[in-house]
């Protein structure tokens, strides 16, 4: 079988990124939008890994680590905000 071309990996990453972008643009529910943002971040990480293995350097994996940590921090804060807002909306409508 032919060896993997670096461009093929980048095309896979582009397809995943485009799918995430389509999800963000189409969905209206905040949970689904956060999921699509996770897909996009993951596709960016895949592109970094592809670059790192193309040049045989560890820098790609290090950038992937930074993306991972950023995604974890972002998702914890965003989910806390979603939780607060939905709980407060429910409380408000229940009181009325």
């Amino acid at each position, binding site marked *: 079988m032919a060896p*993997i071309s670096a461009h093929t990996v980048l095309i896979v990453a582009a397809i995943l990124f485009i799918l995430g972008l389509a999800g963000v643009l189409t969905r209206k529910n905040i949970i689904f939008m956060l999921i699509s943002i996770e897909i996009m971040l993951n596709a960016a990480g895949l592109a970094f890994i592809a670059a790192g293995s*193309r040049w045989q350097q*560890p820098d790609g994996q290090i950038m992937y*680590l930074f993306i991972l*940590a950023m995604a974890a921090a972002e*998702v914890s804060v965003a989910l806390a905000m979603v939780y607060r807002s939905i709980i407060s909306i429910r409380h408000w409508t229940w009181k009325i």
Partner: protein
Amino acid sequence: MPLLFYLSSAIAIIATIMVITRYHPIHALLYLVVSFLAIAMVFLSLGAPFAAALEVIVYAGAIMVLFIFVVMMLNLGKETAAQEKEWLRPGVWIGPGVLTLVLLMEMTILLLAPPQRAVAMAVVTPRQVALSLYGEYIIAVELIGFLLTTGIVGAAHIGKQKKKSLHRFLQA
């Protein structure tokens, strides 16, 4: 290794398509776990075993558990699925779908330009990653530590139950 790459990238793309078309949040999250596991296999086939392990542990483990906890605590179930079904009509998704498809075609045409280079089949070991991470990237590691601490403090502050304080005009 190429077979592993093509197979797992096909699984990742199909699972991601399923994620963005599901109505029920839990179904979407489970397909997203499948997609992350497939991307971990792609990392493994590209010679990055450390990144593959981190993908499984942090993305498919920690971040997805956070999402599932929030969905279950908010009890998003049948009503959310019905609302999504109401919102996700063809008139809503066809415009963004066509635009993103055009963008994808542009990127593919650019990427299929002649100079194709093969990915070398050597593994970048965790030892190399660690030596580089704690050598030349040490400032960035400290900054990421700051970022994670800020995230923890921010999430704890936002999630804290505050006492309701009404404005004095609104008090009965």
